[in-house]
């Protein structure tokens, strides 16, 4: 009895949560007339999927925009790992003058989101002629104080003996980072990677400021351009565009659910 009630509540909730996804898919197959005839039917009586998806791919350079998103996210996460892992290792395991100052800056950095410092970053990018380049979408995020903070916690738990043994085997400190620390911190690194990709795939604030060319848009910005280019309410085409742009992360999530959920919760600290 309790179980039945519980299943009922959970199913109702699931239906509410899935409601937008269902209508997104269904409307992306509907012709405009049918969207405006205001019915609740999920199955289109006249299939207009081809037209809608064709519009979504041609009104804006959709393939290019998706590629931009992939390139930017991969570059960001790559740089973040390359910079953060060695720094986190040094902060966790080595003694050196300036360590406390550096860690203090990491903590300070956790407090300052990109939104708050976007004005000087924009001014600098403009002065350097970097606006409307893919580089400007990547460079401000190459440093992730959050990654440093997270990895430092994780590396602290790695036994010192492991590092001492590697050192006595003649490994340099840099080699220790990539051959000893990285394999041992793999779960933290992959969780962070997921978190970072989701965050930057979604980010609108910085691309909106730094990019005005459709060719260089990331998926969220591309969708804004699509909405602006779309006269009237062509919801069929708009929904087709949202399906295309939402699909990559959702598919990725469905294939690697545990990793995703771990990544997002372990890094839940980041506000």
């Amino acid at each position, binding site marked *: 009895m309790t179980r039945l009630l*519980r*299943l009922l*509540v*959970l199913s109702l*909730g*699931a239906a509410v*949560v899935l*409601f*937008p*996804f269902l*209508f*997104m898919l269904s*409307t992306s197959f509907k012709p405009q007339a049918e969207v*405006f005839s*205001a019915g609740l039917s999920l199955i289109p009586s006249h299939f207009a999927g081809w037209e809608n998806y064709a519009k979504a791919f041609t009104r804006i350079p959709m393939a290019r925009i998706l590629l931009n998103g992939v390139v930017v996210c991969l570059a960001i996460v790559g740089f973040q790992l390359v*910079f953060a892992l060695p*720094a986190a*290792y*040094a902060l966790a395991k*080595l*003694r*050196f003058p*300036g360590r406390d100052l*550096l860690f203090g*800056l990491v903590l300070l950095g956790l407090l*300052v989101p990109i939104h*708050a*410092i*976007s*004005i*000087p*970053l*924009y*001014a600098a990018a403009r002065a350097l002629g970097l606006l409307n380049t893919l580089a400007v979408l990547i460079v401000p995020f190459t*440093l992730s104080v959050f990654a*440093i903070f997270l990895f430092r916690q994780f590396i602290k738990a790695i036994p010192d003996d492991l590092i001492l043994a590697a050192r006595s085997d003649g490994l340099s*400190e840099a080699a220790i980072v990539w051959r000893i620390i990285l394999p041992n911190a793999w779960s933290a690194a992959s969780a962070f990677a997921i978190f970072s990709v989701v965050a930057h795939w*979604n980010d*609108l*604030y910085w691309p*909106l*400021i730094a990019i005005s060319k459709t060719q260089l848009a990331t998926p*969220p910005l591309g*969708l*804004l351009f699509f*909405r602006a280019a779309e006269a009237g*309410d062509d919801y069929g085409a708009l*929904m087709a565009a*949202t399906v295309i*742009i*939402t699909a990559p*992360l*959702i598919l990725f*999530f469905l294939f690697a*659910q545990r990793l*995703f959920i771990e990544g*997002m*919760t372990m890094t*839940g600290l980041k*506000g």
Partner: protein
Amino acid sequence: MPANPAAAAARLEARAAWWLTGPTALLMLVLLVLPTLAVLALSVTDAELGVPAINFLGFDAYTDLLTDRTFLGALRNTALYVALVAPASVLLGLGLALLVEAELGGRAFFRSVYFLPVVSLIVAMASVWQYLMHPSIGPINLVLRLLGASGVNWLGSSDNVLFALAVIGIWQALGFNMVLFMAGLTTIDRTLYAAAEMDGARSAWDRFRLVTWPMLGPTTVFVITISVINAVKVFETVATLTQGGPAKASETLLWVIYQEGFVYLHVGTASAMAVVFIALLLFLLVLQTRVLDKQVHYG
């Protein structure tokens, strides 16, 4: 051979550490420290992008904000949005976590379903919600009319717009909070429930009140803080759907910072607002730490 091998080893270690942290330290200077100092400096001026003359206003820049109707409106709207989204998404997240955790059969399925909005592009899903909330053809109003209620002008009325945005915000945050609570639930020692039962806690409510709720304390504080901070940062839905309207009713903090800084190019004013924004985040984190420190830790 150096006279003191220990000192030599320490020097070697420090040199290695500087090599490892050097690039990061440099990035930190360029991407974090200097921009933050620049925002602080700009915040006490009336600087405008493209205007060479800059006047020093000092602390007046901040007292000016107190009479800035756009800024005060944005603060009020943001506070209202947070007051709608944070409690609802925390409570619903907790409820769902308890239900899903208890439901052994469908646990993985329900967890994935509720988590789906978290990994969906918010700008795209906002567009979907706009269609769902369309006053005449939107499915939500169609359902309401089917149930005999009258339709609601969700995004187009200044009375409802924050509420409509909050619905989207709650929908997006729900699964995230649920998963955080589920992680908290798995750390609770099962034997505590048996002990509580021995002491006479028979009903599910008693078990929740005596064991689950107190043991979840730190998780709850953490989830509340994240929910509040994320809600304070609301921007994507506003930029996509309402542009702060109608009649400024959905202008939020980040939206007006963006407008002032990048549309009107009042970088001085925008910087002062950004400093207030950082101060607000700092305040929330200090508050969280205080509450966590005061709490009794059972675990």
